[in-house]
């Protein structure tokens, strides 16, 4: 269990971490989210005792990290942002060294090292110098080091960076397995990854904790106004007229796609209950509205507020939203047609892959949308 109280870290005048307070329970996987420079790594570095806090305390299983560092650190396995590897050692030498450093009894070195090498699949490179390994393998060696002895608390700073997709799935399974008994804290830029794996998400922005909840609840946070996506084989005017007949619709954005169909994003009132206590679904009404007009409806699906949107909303201050806002309207005017088509293309692509890799697909789609709002660079980085 980790208890962080009133944690502050200042670098001179710069406040990197601003009065953080949280409590992490065992048997859960926590995701640390935040834009670059939000203070994720700094917080992790403080939790592991690498950095001292300016104010506040951190207790690891009841041991204060600064007052009883050795007792506290014994419970932690830490993978920093850059894996701390000695490149002049072979993989197995390094792991034996780490085992000794972590105070694992000599008899158990062999077993502990073999276990972690199996877990992250390092057996075939165990005799190679770390210097000659690729980035993915280095990341795995770093992860193996953190897992050594399977400590109760695992703190992983971007554990998936540099791994290939197959590895990501394997490591994800591994972490999920560990999450049953251990406390796992991981930070990641890939929101889909975090959503997939974490039981609980902490969003940090400018050193402050802005939200902490399960991924589902976080998404519901924005789901107050429901959004639907629909595509119909009709003109813009026609679609607008049909949609106007549905009273629950608050707002609709309609665009023409390359194939000549209309694509609309519809904001509706929050799903309420009708007089009989049944949930009302606007989709039904929309469907009937289109069918009355004898207009084929090609696509109708709810577009949930994704974690990305929650993330953007929570982590960007007022000024920034305005900035990107003006940017977005500009880009919409300039290249409306092409942007829409890209959304469209990726949309269909998404529905193809959806069954196999649901998260992957929804992320691609998200990326397409965000490209339209002029935040290209950042998002792309996250996606790849």
């Amino acid at each position, binding site marked *: 269990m980790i208890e962080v109280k009133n944690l502050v870290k200042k670098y001179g005048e710069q406040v990197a971490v601003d009065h953080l307070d949280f409590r992490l329970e065992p048997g859960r996987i926590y995701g640390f989210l935040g834009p670059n420079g939000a203070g994720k790594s700094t917080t992790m570095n403080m939790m592991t005792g690498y950095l001292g806090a300016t104010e506040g305390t951190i207790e690891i299983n009841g041991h204060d990290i600064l007052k009883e560092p050795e007792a506290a650190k014994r419970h932690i396995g830490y993978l920093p*942002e850059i894996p701390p590897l000695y490149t002049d050692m072979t993989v197995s030498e390094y792991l034996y060294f780490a085992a000794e450093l*972590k105070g694992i009894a000599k008899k158990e070195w062999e077993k502990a090292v073999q276990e972690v090498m199996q877990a992250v699949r390092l057996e075939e490179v165990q005799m190679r110098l770390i210097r000659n390994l690729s980035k993915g393998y280095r990341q795995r060696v770093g992860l193996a080091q953190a897992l050594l002895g399977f400590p109760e608390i695992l703190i992983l700073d971007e554990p998936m960076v540099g791994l290939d997709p197959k590895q990501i799935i394997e490591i994800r399974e591994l972490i999920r397995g560990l999450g049953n008994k251990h406390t796992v804290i991981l930070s990641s830029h890939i929101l889909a990854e975090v959503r997939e794996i974490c039981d609980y998400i902490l969003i940090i922005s400018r050193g402050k904790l802005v939200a902490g909840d399960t991924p589902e609840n976080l998404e519901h946070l924005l789901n107050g106004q429901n959004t639907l996506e629909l595509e119909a084989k009709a003109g813009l005017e026609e679609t607008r007229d049909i949609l106007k007949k549905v009273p629950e619709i608050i707002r609709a954005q309609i665009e023409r796609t390359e194939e000549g169909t209309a694509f609309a994003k519809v904001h509706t009132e929050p799903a309420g209950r009708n007089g009989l206590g049944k949930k009302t679904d606007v989709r039904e009404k929309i469907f009937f509205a289109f069918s009355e007009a004898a207009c084929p409806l090609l696509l109708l699906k709810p577009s949930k507020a994704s974690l990305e949107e929650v993330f953007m909303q929570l982590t960007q201050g007022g000024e920034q939203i305005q900035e990107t806002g003006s940017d977005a309207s500009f880009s919409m005017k300039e290249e409306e047609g092409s942007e829409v088509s890209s959304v469209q293309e990726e949309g269909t692509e998404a529905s193809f892959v959806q069954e196999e890799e649901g998260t992957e697909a929804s992320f691609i789609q998200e990326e397409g949308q965000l490209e339209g709002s002029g935040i290209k660079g950042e998002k792309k980085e996250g996606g790849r």
Partner: protein
Amino acid sequence: MCAIYKRELRSYFRSMVGCVFVAFLVAFTGIYFTAYNLTAGYPYFSYTLSGSLIVFLVGIPLITMRSFSEERKNKTDQLLLTAPVSLTKVVLGKYLAMASVIALPNLIFCLFPLLIKMNGTAYLKVDYISIAVFFLLGCVYVAIGMFLSSLTESQMIAFLSTFGVLLVLYLWDGILGFLPSSALSCMIGVILILSIPVFYIWQMTSNWIVSAVLEAICVAGCVGTYVMHAELFENLLTKLLGNLAFADVFTGITENQIVDLGGIALYISVIAVFIFLTIQAIQKRRWS
């Protein structure tokens, strides 16, 4: 501590730095040995050893430069500092590994007096003591080098600063001659010297009041003593700073066969001080 010691030692000999250092020092001493002892027939090996002192000036920075700066640059210090090992043990592990690298050529040197004995009279006691003090002097230099390495991320800066400091210490006797000897200038000098630890305390604690009070006490004490007993300050600077010529203890043995126990105590305390400073320097970085 044991893990770090073993890793460091292995790394020194794997990266060739350790091998090169040992080879260079032994080869250099071997040349002197051939010239002085074997060819010229001088029976003291200790004299030969004093010639090798200059190799330390280049060799020791080579050993110490990477100790902490490399860790910091590659971020491997994160592994050490987040492991359940105290910082003191980390520093001691590294220090002992470097001391062991220095010890190796000295062990080889132990054979040289025996070679002299095989060919005639040898002064084994003096020779072995001088080898031991030579090693101890090396340890002092290593401690200084390690401290300087802990201050920077760049190995090059660590090397050059250590080399510079060791060179100044080597030439210290000559530099001492330039120091003033009058009571007034000595008092100012003493105040300046005392200001260094006060500045250090200020740097470490960022507490203005404590540092200012300490500085005031130092200045007041010096000025007060000067007013009452000005003669106390005469030549004080030379006497005080003369102790910094660490090599003097060693050359005292090699040239005059005098073992200065006080000097050896000085060596050990300097080692302790610099190990302490290294720990503090790393500690300080965690907090800023």
